[in-house]
């Protein structure tokens, strides 16, 4: 029994020490400097970019149309306090705090939003601080901007023989994804744009590709009489620009130029040569066609 005293000694030492207990509700809790507590949103600074909604792993932040602004609604009952939104906010509109006493009786107390104040730029008689400005003389019609746009504010349309992006300022949340991705720097954000831009200008400048002698292949034509309705073209199409539809008892391809990327796969795969390019593919890009 000579082995027990190691613990007995320990116990007796602790009898005369100060208790280790932290008397929490009656005493101020000891919280570290960088503790991740509840995030607070500063509406005056918010530029409505939507990045916080994108990075949130738990769907706790949702952009909603409130009082004429796209502001983030924060649902604390879903928040996992990872502070990813705070690290990513471009305008420091979300502030960390050390609040942890968040318990409540009802779940709806966590949702909702205080009254959204007037955005600072509205006071200066500016409708919105920034717009996306598209320079059509630089646009190479690659449709990357339409692909990345989260709210479909940029969509592709056909005008003056070009497939160009059109911009809807009302839906745009100014996330600047299109500015980042544009390969030809045709999209830029303007700080002092006075008024809402048109969806698409009335007259389009010529395409930059034509200046250097390249011709964009703009049309694919389908010879409906020759078509057998085999659906091969709709299957190979990578962008689902060709859809098969039953017209007059026959299965015929319906073609959407706004989705087409002119890859030529349908042209290559068609067994009866019913698909043709106009103008024809340049020599370097022309594929060998089996007869």
């Amino acid at each position, binding site marked *: 029994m000579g082995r027990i005293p190691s613990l007995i000694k320990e116990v007796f030492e602790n009898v005369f020490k100060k208790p280790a207990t932290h008397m929490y509700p009656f005493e101020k809790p000891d919280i570290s400097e960088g503790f991740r507590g509840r995030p607070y949103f500063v509406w005056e600074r918010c530029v409505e970019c939507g990045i916080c909604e*994108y990075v949130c792993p738990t*769907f706790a932040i949702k952009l909603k149309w409130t009082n004429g602004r796209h502001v983030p609604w924060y649902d604390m009952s879903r928040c996992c306090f990872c502070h990813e939104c705070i690290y990513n906010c471009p305008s420091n509109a979300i502030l960390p705090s050390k609040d942890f006493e968040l318990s409540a009786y009802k779940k709806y107390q966590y949702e909702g939003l205080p009254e959204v104040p007037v955005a600072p730029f509205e006071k200066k008689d500016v409708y919105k601080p920034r717009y996306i400005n598209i320079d059509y003389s630089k646009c190479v019609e690659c449709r990357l901007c339409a692909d*990345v746009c*989260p709210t479909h504010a940029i969509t592709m349309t056909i005008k003056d023989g070009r497939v160009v992006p059109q911009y809807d300022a009302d839906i745009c949340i100014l996330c600047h994804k299109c500015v980042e991705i544009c390969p030809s720097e045709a999209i830029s954000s303007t700080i002092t744009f006075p008024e809402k831009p048109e969806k698409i200008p009335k007259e389009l400048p010529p395409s930059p590709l034509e200046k250097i002698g390249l011709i964009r292949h703009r049309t694919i034509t389908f010879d409906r009489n020759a078509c057998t309705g085999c659906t091969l073209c709709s299957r190979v199409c990578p962008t689902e620009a060709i859809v098969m539809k039953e017209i007059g008892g026959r299965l015929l391809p319906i073609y959407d130029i706004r989705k087409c990327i002119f890859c030529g796969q349908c042209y290559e795969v068609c067994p009866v040569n019913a698909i043709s390019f106009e103008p024809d593919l340049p020599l370097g890009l022309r594929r060998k066609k089996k007869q």
Partner: protein
Amino acid sequence: MAQKSLNIADNKKVVEELVSTLKDKVLDVKWSGPRRVYVKIAPHSHREFIKWVRDKFPNSSYLVSIDTVDFIDRGEFEIRYKMQIVHNSIKLALIFEMNVPRDYPKVRTITDIVPGAVLYERENYEMFGIIFEGHPNLAKFFLPETWPEGVYPLRKDVNILRKKPKVW
């Protein structure tokens, strides 16, 4: 540090020996770093490889995991057996990749060679529907009793998520 000594030549020697022993069954060898090697093996030859490793290093190798990748575009499953060897200066992770046709996923079990593979095989049966012939108890382990027969959740063509994921 003595225990951190790593001899890459020794690692290579092991793989060369493996390839020379089971020459016709090895389809491809791919190194990813000095300690990891992917060995593509012929269908239904996994037992020989694992037996070889276990017999050669009985006191210094173990089975890390068995898992499956669903290559739905190629129409086949890829079963991966991961082994680890730690023997003096040999520190090698071996990954045996084996293709199995998607419409007839049936392989022999390895539980008689490595008894610890029981749970991994059950899991792969449950999640991908791969049948391990000769397994002592190929029953449900994770999924509850109400789960319908013939639906294997980790296959790519099974879509059971509730909310749509974000579009960005």
